[in-house]
C-alpha cells in the first residue's frame, strides 16, 4: 500500500462521501443538546456540530448520546472522521463516548506509534495513519473536538433543573492539537 493509500484508506474515502450525520437536526423532546463550532485556522475549514443527549432508555444513571448532527466544510480527512464519529458514538452511554474520544486522540497524536484497537475504535482505526502527518492532525480532530465540547455542555444541560440553552459556543480548534 502506498503512503497515500495508507492515509486515504477506502473506508475514509467512503465516509468522506457518505458523511453520516450530516445536516443539523433539532433534538427530540426530552433530550438536551448543545452546539460547538470549530474553526481550523490553518486552512479556514470549519464544522458546526450538535451533540444530543438523553436519559438512557434502560433507566441507567449515565445518559446516552442520542444524536450527532453536523455541517461544515473541509478536507476528506475531516469529513470522514466526523462521519465515523457519528457512526461510532450515537447510541452509546456518554462515558463510553468520552472514552472513545480519548482513545482516538491518543492514536492520532501518537505519530503513528500506537496500534489502534480495531475492536474498540471500529472504522475510526482507519485514521491511525494520520498521526504521521503533522499537518493533518487538526483535520482528523476537528469534528471530535467539536463533539467533546458540545457533549459536555449538553450533559450539563440535561442535568440542570431548567435547561437554559445558551448561544452556541464558538471556539477554535484547540491549538494543542498541533503537536
Amino acid at each position: 500500500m502506498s503512503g497515500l493509500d495508507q492515509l486515504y484508506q477506502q473506508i475514509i474515502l467512503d465516509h468522506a462521501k457518505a458523511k453520516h450525520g450530516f445536516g443539523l437536526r433539532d433534538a427530540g423532546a426530552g433530550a438536551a443538546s448543545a452546539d460547538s463550532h470549530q474553526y481550523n485556522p490553518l486552512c479556514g475549514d470549519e464544522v458546526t456540530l450538535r451533540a444530543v443527549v438523553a436519559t438512557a432508555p434502560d433507566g441507567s444513571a449515565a445518559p446516552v448520546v442520542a444524536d450527532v448532527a453536523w455541517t461544515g466544510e473541509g478536507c476528506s480527512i475531516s469529513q470522514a472522521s466526523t462521519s465515523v464519529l457519528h457512526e461510532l458514538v450515537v447510541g452509546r452511554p456518554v462515558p463510553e463516548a468520552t472514552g472513545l474520544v480519548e482513545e482516538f486522540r491518543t492514536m492520532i497524536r501518537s505519530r503513528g506509534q500506537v496500534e489502534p484497537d480495531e475492536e474498540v475504535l471500529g472504522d475510526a482505526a482507519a485514521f491511525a495513519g494520520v498521526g504521521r502527518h503533522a499537518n493533518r492532525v487538526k483535520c482528523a480532530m476537528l469534528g471530535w473536538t467539536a463533539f467533546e465540547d458540545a457533549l459536555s455542555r449538553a450533559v450539563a444541560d440535561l442535568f440542570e433543573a431548567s435547561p437554559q440553552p445558551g448561544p452556541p459556543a464558538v471556539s477554535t480548534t484547540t491549538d494543542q492539537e498541533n503537536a
Partner: protein
Amino acid sequence: MSAPAVDTARVGDPGGASAFSDDEVAAVRARFPVLSRTVGAGHALAYLDSGATSQRPDSVLDAERDYLTRSNAAVHRGAHTLAEEATQAYEDARSAVAGFVGLDDDELVWTRNATEGLNIVALGLSHYGIGAPGPLALRAGDEVVVTEMEHHANLVPWQQACARTGATLRWIGLDDDGRLDLGDLERVVTARTKVLAFTHASNVLGTVNPVPRLVAAAKAVGALTVLDACQSVPHFPVDLRALGVDLAVFSAHKMLGPTGIGALAGRREVLAALPPVITGGSMVEKVTMESTTFREPPQRFEAGTPPVSQAIAWHAAVDHLSALGMDRIAAHEHMLTERLLAGVAGVPGVRVLGPTTARDRVGAVSVVVEGVHPHDVGQFLDNEGIAVRVGHHCAQPVHRRYGATASTRASVYLYSTTAEVDAFVETLGRVRDYFGAA
C-alpha cells in the same frame, strides 16, 4: 550590487534575457543540497513551494557558518577583534541588501520578517500617546487604502491602525481576471487618503501590480506609499528608488536567505519621520530612569540584539542571485509560468485563480480542483514527491472574492525545471479520479 531599474510593465516580457538552459538549471540546482533528496517511496523531490519559502544554496549556508566559526560576536560593541570583524560583516550586509533594491545602507532596517516591517509602519502611524502625533500620524477622518489581494500581513495591521486612530480602511477591488480594478482608483484614492499600501505581486494570484500608476495616484493626493515586495524582490529586478515608493518590505527566506530576518526599506526622510514602537537597547541615545532619547534610522527601529548571522547569510543570498542575474532568473520563471498555465489549462475540472497568461505575472499559480479539497490535492501530489502549498496562503479575502476557501498553489523559482512543472500538471490530472470527483 545595485539592480537595474525595471519598469514593471516589463515583467512577463523579459526582453533580452533568456531562460536557463537545461545545463544551466542543472548547475543552478547543484548548489542547493536539499534538491537532491527523495520523498516517500523514492520519488525525486519537486519543490514547487518557493512562494512560501525558498531553499538555500551552499553559498548561503557556508557564509553563515564561516562567520559563526570565525568572528561571531555582538556587533557595535566591544573593542575586540571578533566584535570588529562582526560589525564590519554586518554593516557590509546592510549595504549589500540595500543596494540589491537600489537603496543606500541607511535606508534599510533589519526586521524579524516582512510582517514586522509592515507593523513598524502601521504602528508608527498610529502612535498616539508618546508626545505629539508625528507628521505622518493617522487621525479620525483619514483613510488608508489597501487592495483586496493583500496578504494578511498587509491588511490586518492596517485594520488595527484604523481601529486605533479612527481612520477608515478602504480597498481597491479586483476584476474577474485577477487584476486590480483600476476603474476604482480615483474613487478610492482621494484627498482623504493618507496611506496607499499594496502588494507588488500577489502570492495567490501571481498578479504583478502597476506600481508606477499606483504611486502616481498616491503622489497626486500626498499619500504615503507602502509596497509589499515579498513576492517581487526574489523574482525580478526591483529598484525601489526608481519605483518611487516611500517604504517597502521583503523577507530573506523567500530569496535564498534565512528565516528570522526581513527588511523595511525606503526613503530616509520617511524613515526619519516615523517614530519607533519597539524600544530597548541599541536604538537609544541617552537613557535615564525618567526618560530616553532615540537614535536615527535605521538603528531607531532595531531594538535589542539584531539577527547578525542572518544578515550575513542574506548578503550571501543577494550575491548568489546577482551572480546568476535577476533578469535571467525572471526570464527563467517567466518561461516556467507560461508552461504551467498552459498545462493547467488542459486539465479538466481545474480553475486557475488569477491571470491565465504570464504577462505581468509571477510564477505562483493557484488552482481550485472541482470536488477535491486542496489539502487532499496537496497530499496526492506529495505522494509523487511534488511539494505544493495548500490552504488560504494567508490571504482569505482574495479567496473569498473568487468563491473559494482555499486553493492549491504551485510556485516556481530559479531552480525549478520544466520536468517538475510537467509532473505537477500530469499528476494534477489524476487527482479527481482518485478522490472520486471526476
